[in-house]
C-alpha cells in the first residue's frame, strides 16, 4: 500500500500544476493582504444612526479608532471603549443577542487591557498580523478549490490518458488502487492547509504590524487568541475540504471526465451558500433539513463564531460530515470495482 501511495504522490507532485497550486495560494494571499491595506488606508466618513455624515474631530493620523458612540464620537483608547461597552450592557439588558455580542467585544478589549497592548484596528489604517492570521487571509475557499481540482484530476486523468489500464493490470485490488488515491488526496488536503497557514503567517508578517499571536485576533471572536482562532478555522475547513474532495473523487470515478469533475466540484463549493439560504428558511418547518450536507458544510461557522442553522453542536456537525464522507466513499468504491474499463 505504501508503494501505491508513494506512486500517487509522485504523480501528483511531479506535475507542473502542483507548483501552480502553491504559487496560487501565495499570490492570492499577497493580493488579499495588499488590498486590505489599500482599502483600510482610505478615510471612510463616519455616519451616525440616521445615516448623516458626522464631522469627526480631526484625529492625528494612525490614531486607533475602536468604534463610535451614537453621536459619532470615536473611541481611541481601550479603557474608554470598555467603559462605553459596559454602559451599553445596561441599555441592552433584555436583548440577549445584543448582550452576547457586547460581551464578546468586551472579552476582546479586556484581553488587550490585561496585556497592556494597544490593539491595531482598521481604524488606524491597518490590521495586525494576528487579525490576518486568525482568518487565514480569507483563503479557506481557495484552498478547497485547489484540493477539489486535484481530487478530480487524480482519477479522471488516468481514464483520460488511458493509463488506467496500466494501473488496473497490477497485482492489487481495485479497492486498493482507489484507497491509495484517496489517501493521497487526504494527505494533499492536510498539506495544503498547513502550507496555507505558514504562507499566511509569512505574507502577514511582511504586510502588517506584528503583535503577539496569543492576543485576540478579531473583535467578533472575543478573547480567543489569534493563533487558536487560525487553527480552529483550519481544522473546521479541513473537515469541509475532506467532504468536498471525497465528493470530487466520486464524481471523477463516475464520469471519468476531468472537466466534469472539476466543474461539478467547484460548482458545489459555490452553490453551497446559495442552497443554504433556502435551507435555513425551511429548517424551522422541516427540522430534518438541518442534516443536509449543505448545512453541515457550514462547519466553518463554528470557527468564525456564527450560528449554524438548526442549532447543531460542533460534534454533531463533525460526526454528520464523517458519516457523509464514509457513505460517499463506499459508493465510490462500489462503482469503481464494478466498472468496465471500456474501449477507448
Amino acid at each position, binding site marked *: 500500500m505504501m*508503494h*501505491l501511495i*508513494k*506512486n500517487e504522490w*509522485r*504523480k501528483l507532485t*511531479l*506535475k*507542473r500544476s502542483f507548483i501552480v497550486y502553491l504559487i496560487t495560494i501565495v499570490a492570492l494571499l499577497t493580493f488579499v493582504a495588499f488590498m486590505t491595506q489599500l482599502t483600510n488606508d482610505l478615510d471612510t466618513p463616519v455616519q451616525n444612526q440616521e445615516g448623516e455624515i458626522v464631522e469627526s474631530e480631526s484625529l492625528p493620523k494612525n490614531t486607533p479608532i475602536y468604534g463610535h458612540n451614537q453621536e459619532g464620537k470615536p473611541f481611541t483608547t481601550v479603557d474608554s471603549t470598555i467603559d462605553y461597552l459596559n454602559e451599553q450592557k445596561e441599555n441592552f439588558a433584555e436583548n440577549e443577542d445584543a448582550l452576547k455580542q457586547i460581551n464578546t467585544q468586551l472579552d476582546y478589549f479586556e484581553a488587550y487591557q490585561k496585556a497592556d497592548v494597544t490593539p491595531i484596528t482598521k481604524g488606524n489604517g491597518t490590521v495586525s498580523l494576528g487579525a490576518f492570521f486568525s482568518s487565514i487571509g480569507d483563503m479557506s475557499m481557495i484552498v478547497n478549490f485547489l484540493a477539489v481540482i486535484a481530487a478530480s484530476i487524480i482519477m479522471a486523468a488516468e481514464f483520460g*490518458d*488511458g*493509463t488506467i*489500464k*496500466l*494501473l*488496473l*493490470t*497490477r*497485482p*492489487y*485490488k481495485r479497492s486498493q488502487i482507489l484507497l491509495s488515491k484517496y489517501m493521497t488526496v487526504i494527505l494533499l488536503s492536510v498539506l495544503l492547509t498547513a502550507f496555507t497557514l505558514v504562507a499566511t503567517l509569512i505574507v502577514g508578517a511582511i504586510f502588517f504590524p506584528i503583535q503577539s499571536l496569543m492576543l485576540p485576533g478579531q473583535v467578533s471572536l472575543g478573547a480567543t487568541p489569534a493563533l487558536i482562532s487560525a487553527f480552529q478555522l483550519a481544522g473546521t475547513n479541513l473537515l469541509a475540504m475532506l467532504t468536498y474532495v471525497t465528493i470530487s473523487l466520486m464524481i471523477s470515478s463516475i464520469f471519468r471526465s476531468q472537466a466534469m469533475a472539476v466543474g461539478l466540484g467547484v460548482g458545489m463549493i459555490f452553490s453551497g451558500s446559495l442552497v443554504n439560504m433556502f435551507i435555513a428558511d425551511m429548517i424551522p418547518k422541516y427540522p430534518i433539513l438541518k442534516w443536509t450536507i449543505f448545512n453541515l458544510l457550514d462547519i466553518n461557522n463554528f470557527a468564525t463564531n456564527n450560528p449554524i442553522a438548526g442549532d447543531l453542536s460542533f460534534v454533531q456537525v463533525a460526526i454528520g460530515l464523517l458519516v457523509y464522507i464514509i457513505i460517499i466513499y463506499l459508493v465510490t468504491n462500489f462503482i469503481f470495482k*464494478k466498472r*468496465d*474499463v*471500456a*474501449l*477507448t
Partner: protein
Amino acid sequence: MTEIILEAKHLTKTMKTTNIVEDCTISVAKGEILGLLGPNGAGKTTIIRMITGLISKSQGEVWINGYDLDQSFEKAIGHVGAIIENPEFYKYLSGWENLKQFARMSRKNITDDDLNKMVEMVHLTDAIHHKVKTYSLGMRQRLGIAQALMHEPTLLILDEPLNGLDPEGMRDFRQLMRDVADKGTAILISSHLLSEMEMIADRVVIIEKGKLTHNETLKKEEVTASSMIEFTIETQEQAALQAEIVRLGLSVTKTDGDFLTVEIKRDSIPDVIAILVRAGIPIYSATPLTTTLEDRFLSLTNQGGQY
C-alpha cells in the same frame, strides 16, 4: 505434456443483447506464441480486456498459472505483463520514472540495475531520462515492452504491439519475442498484421465477429526431399503436358487455364522438368505452391463479407 499457462474458457461478453464475444476458448502453453488474428472490431481487444480483468466477463473463466482471475486476481495478474492498445504512459514523467512506478507496483524486488538492463534491451538508454511526451510512437512501444517484461511475467499479453515500429524495430521485436518465449514465457499477441503474425506466432487463432473460426499451427513442417508438395506448371501446351504427366504417373490436383498443379515429391522436380523439356513442352513458369496465412485469412474474411 507442456504446461498450460493461460486458459480462457468459454469467454462471452454480452452488451445489451448482442454478444460481442461468444464462447471463445483460448489456451497458451509455456514457451508458445499464440497469435490472435482478426479484422478490426472482431473482438480481439475485448477478449484481451477480459483476460486482464479490465472488463467483466458475461460468462466464462480465466486461469493464469493455475490461478482463477476472479477468485485470486492479484496472484493471477501478478504473472502477467501486458501492453493493451496504445502504449500509454504518464507523459509528464520521464521514461525512467514511469518504469519506477511500475516496478514499485510489481510486488517483486526490481532493482535499478534490473531496470537499466531492461532499458538497454529496448534501446532506450539515451532517452530514458527525458519526458515521455518527447518520445516517438516507436519509443513508446519499446518503453511499453520494457514495462511489460520487467517483472519477468510467465504470460505476456500484447495487443497490437507492432503499430508504430519501423522495420528494424519489428525485426528486433520478433527476435526479442522469440528469446522471451524460448525462456518459457507464454505470449499472446493480437494483431491484424498477417504477415508479421506469420513470422512471430507458433499458432494462430482467427476470430471473426466475436467467434473463433480457426485454430492453426504454423510450425513449418520440415520439407524433406521425399515429402510431397504441390507444384504448378505454366504452359500453353496443356494437352501435351497432361499426357506427359499421366505417363509419369503423377496426380493432377488442379487445372486453371494455362496452369496445371500436380502433386509431386520434392526431389523429383528437376527430373520431371527435364523430361517435360525434352518432350518439347514450353514451360513459362514452374512454382511450388505454398499457401500463406494471409491467403487463408483473406478468403475467410471474404466469405464473411458475403453473408
